């Protein structure tokens, strides 16, 4: 019965969302407090209803209720409990449910904490959110209903795709969706401002934390996805410029630009119209990503079962929202009052530069992702735009941007002094240059570019530290005052510095792996050895093993350095019994920031096996950098300065806007 109640709740949620789409807008136009009051009530009601539906689906998964078609298709009674649970969103229908749940959760947060928003703005924002909710609820109910039943119920399910049976499934999609869907709030705020024809001062204060929260989650989600693909797929790469990866990377690039322009807008009331445009673009790119991976345009593990009607439906949603928002922008943008003025050399100017580079980079990735698809649709020719294209276009765009990053935070608002900033950065530049030279000198045979690349990473880190040091007044004031200033620095300053440092850390990891990684493919028999970086691997042999729902062939290796055994690792080839699908489990040995990565290949007659060994120096820096960036986002989110009290509730304690995420 709980299944059917969940189904009913989902339909009820659609009815509620449709009311929420219409009544508050009318209320905001006519300044009717009653109709506007429907918005928060309906937002919270939708959240409760969809949460109930989601719980009902989860219960079906956990209890292996194969009378639910979705459970039968994607679960198996022998699966470990954690995968039964995360398997809820390991398929198309369930992941759309998670998408919806996060969407209405965010709407409910706006409803709940939005006491300090002007009523018309709040109503319009929630109405726009309800448009998105209604569109996707209709999509789910008509084309991807997770509550379809089977009678008689089969006795056993078809199992979850083995590649997805991993802890990564519990983290990667929810994080990614928090990011994608978080940008929907920025989108709704932008559209609400366009509908209202004005931008309230509270607008920027709300948009920045939402952008920050969404960006933080998206950064973590992409990094998790990259690491998951790295250890699960067994091909040793961490980024492939695959269209599916690009689909998440484009909103990230645009979101990063939005984050920076929202900063200018909050602090300086400048770049208002540009920020609105960016907010629309960022969410549009999130929708585009959803379309690309769900419509069957691409074949990938993310596409799940493809069905052309779904593709067309999402395309309609995409066209309606993106087209509608841009049309509204074209119609209404001139009614918005433009923001403050600033000199080209200023913090605002630096952030505009950042935006220019980031949006150009987004456009580059967009072209590289869509061009092959469009070409195939028009001429039928299949081409593949791989890493060479992106390395030649995206790479050169990033270098000047990364070089410029440390200047931004040091420039003054409105009008800055570039020369003075350069003088402050001489230490950072010196350190970066020294490291570059050291790398070129010590790493024999290293390309000069690798040295410079690592120098660039060091430059970012040193530049961020310089920023914090200068703000604390290092070299200008006495130590106690310096300490007091340091402690008094807003958290957003630390957050920004941390994020920029993380960028530097990632750059170092990327450059080091690209330049210094080694790969070898060898045939090994038990007892034979091979070399990976400074380590020697001895193959002990293959051994069969049985897991809860798979059988595997484990290859065990002893790792030694200078003749001394230091550790061992196990790589395996699994076959999942239900789907008879083989997967590769890479064996990874982490040594400091470096990793030794071993994947098993084919077995050869006579007891030998093909073994791929990668030595990846500093590879973990890539993901540590991303973690730093996310941490920076979190630190910024908790900045006390985001607090604003509502004028009507001056007696009640002010709500910290940033904390609800």
């Amino acid at each position, binding site marked *: 019965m709980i299944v059917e*109640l969940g189904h009913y709740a989902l339909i009820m949620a659609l009815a509620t969302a449709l009311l929420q789409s219409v009544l508050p807008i009318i209320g905001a136009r006519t300044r009717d407090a*009653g*109709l506007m*009051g429907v918005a928060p009530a309906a937002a919270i009601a939708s959240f409760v209803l969809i949460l109930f539906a989601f719980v009902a689906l989860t219960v079906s998964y956990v209890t292996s209720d194969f009378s639910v078609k979705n459970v039968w298709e994607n679960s198996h009674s022998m699966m470990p409990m954690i995968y039964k649970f995360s398997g809820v969103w390991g398929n198309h229908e369930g992941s759309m449910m998670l998408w919806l749940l996060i969407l209405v959760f965010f709407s409910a947060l706006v409803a709940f904490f939005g006491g300090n928003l002007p009523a*018309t703005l709040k109503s319009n924002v929630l109405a726009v959110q309800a448009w998105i909710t209604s569109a996707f609820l209709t999509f789910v109910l008509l084309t991807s209903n997770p509550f379809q039943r089977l009678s008689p119920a089969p006795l056993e399910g078809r199992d979850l795709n083995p590649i997805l049976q991993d802890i990564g499934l519990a983290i990667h999609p929810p994080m990614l969706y928090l990011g994608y869907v978080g940008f929907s709030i920025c989108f709704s705020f932008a559209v609400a401002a366009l509908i209202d024809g004005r931008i*309230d*001062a509270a607008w920027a204060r709300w948009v920045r934390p939402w952008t920050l929260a969404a960006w933080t989650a998206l950064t973590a989600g992409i990094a998790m996805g990259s690491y998951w693909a790295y250890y699960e797929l067994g091909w040793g790469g961490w980024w*492939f410029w695959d269209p599916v990866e690009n689909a998440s990377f484009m909103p990230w690039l645009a979101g990063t630009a939005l984050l920076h322009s929202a900063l200018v807008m909050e602090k300086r009331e400048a770049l208002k119209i540009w920020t609105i445009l960016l907010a629309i673009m960022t969410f549009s790119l999130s929708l585009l990503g959803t379309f690309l991976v769900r419509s069957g345009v691409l074949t990938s593990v993310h596409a799940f079962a493809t069905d052309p009607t779904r593709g067309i439906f999402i395309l309609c949603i995409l066209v309606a929202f993106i087209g509608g928002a841009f049309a509204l922008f074209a119609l209404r943008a001139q009614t918005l009052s433009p923001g403050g003025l600033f000199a080209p050399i200023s913090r605002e100017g630096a952030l505009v530069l950042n935006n220019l580079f980031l949006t150009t980079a987004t456009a580059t990735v967009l072209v590289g992702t869509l061009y092959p698809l469009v070409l195939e649709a028009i001429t039928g020719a299949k081409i593949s735009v791989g890493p060479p294209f992106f390395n030649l276009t995206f790479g050169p765009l990033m270098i000047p941007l990364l070089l410029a990053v440390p200047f931004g935070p040091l420039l003054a608002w409105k009008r800055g002094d570039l020369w003075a900033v350069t003088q402050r950065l001489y230490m950072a530049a010196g350190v970066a240059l020294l490291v570059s030279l050291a790398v070129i000198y010590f790493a024999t045979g290293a390309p000069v570019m690798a040295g410079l690349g690592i120098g660039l990473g060091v430059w970012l880190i040193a530049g961020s530290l310089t920023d914090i040091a200068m703000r604390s007044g290092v070299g200008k004031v006495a130590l106690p005052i310096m300490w007091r200033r340091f402690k008094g620095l807003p958290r957003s300053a630390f957050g920004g510095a941390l994020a920029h440092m993380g960028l530097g850390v990632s750059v170092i990891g990327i450059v080091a792996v690209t330049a210094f990684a080694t790969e070898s493919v060898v045939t090994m028999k038990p007892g034979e050895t091979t070399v990976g970086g400074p380590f020697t691997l001895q193959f002990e042999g293959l051994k069969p093993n049985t897991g809860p729902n798979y059988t595997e062939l484990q290859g065990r290796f002893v790792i030694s350095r200078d003749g001394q055994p230091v550790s061992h690792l196990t790589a395996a080839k699994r076959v999942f019994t239900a789907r008879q699908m083989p997967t590769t489990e890479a064996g990874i040995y982490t040594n400091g920031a470096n990793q030794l990565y071993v994947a098993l290949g084919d077995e050869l007659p006579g007891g030998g096996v093909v073994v791929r060994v990668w030595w990846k120096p500093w590879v973990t820096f890539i993901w540590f950098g991303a973690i730093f960036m996310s941490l920076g986002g979190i630190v910024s989110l908790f900045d006390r300065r985001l607090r604003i009290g509502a004028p009507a509730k001056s007696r009640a304690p002010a709500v910290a806007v940033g904390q609800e995420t």
Partner: protein
Amino acid sequence: MFWILAAVMTVAVTISLLVPLMRPRKKDIDAREFDVEVYSDQLREIERDIKIGSLSGQEAEYARAEVGRRLIKASKAEADHTAASTGLTRFGRLAVIVFLPFMALAGYLAVGQPGMPAQPLATRVAPVPDSNSNIQVLVAQAEKHLASNPQDGKGWDVLAPIYLGLNRMHDSETAYRNAIRLLGSTAARQAGLGQSLFSQSGGIVTAEVQEAFQKAQDLQPDNPLSAYFLALGLAQEGKNEQARADFVKLAENSPPDAAWMPLVREHIQRLGTQAGMDQLQAEAAPPPVDVPAVDGPAVDAPGPSAEDVAAASQMSNEERLDMIAGMVAGLDAKLRENPDDSTGWLRLIRSHMVLGQRDQAGDALSRALDHFGADNADRQALLAMASQLGLEPKELKQ
């Protein structure tokens, strides 16, 4: 019960939406107060910065003046009051009361199945036995038993022919292999293994299939099943004379009304009158007796032209094989020029396999996979066929 809970849910949601419409907020807030609040907050922020020293002298003055200007502008803006309630509120109430329950009910009745209970696996009663689901239940039970006692050879031996009958070829292969490993080789087990392998290879007597039937025949020389498949294998290899002789022998040793006789006669006739060309195009002859039909990966290949066939029928065996090799080489060359032809690749790999050139087939597969990038439907098709033929691609990215 379901309808009671559904009604409770409907009423609760309807009421929660009606509440703001029945009692609109009494207090009227001017929208511009929000702007004023934000700017005052910014002014306080500036004071705080001055106090800790991160903003000094002139900078602070500029900042204060700027925010001050905005504050004045905001407080001078036109007041923007909201009305407590208008006639529209009544429309809102009506909309909620009518639309919400109606839409939810209509929508649910259209797609839902109100009477259907949840059926968690743990609480499921044994299903009503109709013949098919009965087998499924037995199989499921046997599978569960074998998952915990994988060394039970007898269980595998019982399950293997059932799998074969259910057309679950991969499972029957595993079961036969386990039974052979645990209980030893018999003609029936080897022949069963041969049949499951044959079905998986898409109707080609591969070296593995041949080995299984050869073992079966060694154990029981008069088994018609293994005789049939071994002869078919010879025919597929192009050894027509030998194949024909074996089929004739099988026909002589079988009772004239045996179920497989029509098929055997057909083979004898074909091999007698027609060139080996057709066999090399690897038609999957329907296997005899109780072997289920095979769904191999069908490849529509532009076969040899009528002239080719006519010419081939005049040739000797060697000449014929030369001609076939020439055609395969031609296809190979064509694919080097135009590697996008995925059907061509499938055909080339298959031809190599039929000719017994396993290595060349593997090479062709690697080349084809290299050409089709990741995430490509053609690549999937190639991989699917490769696994059915038992070919392992040299490297696999994902």
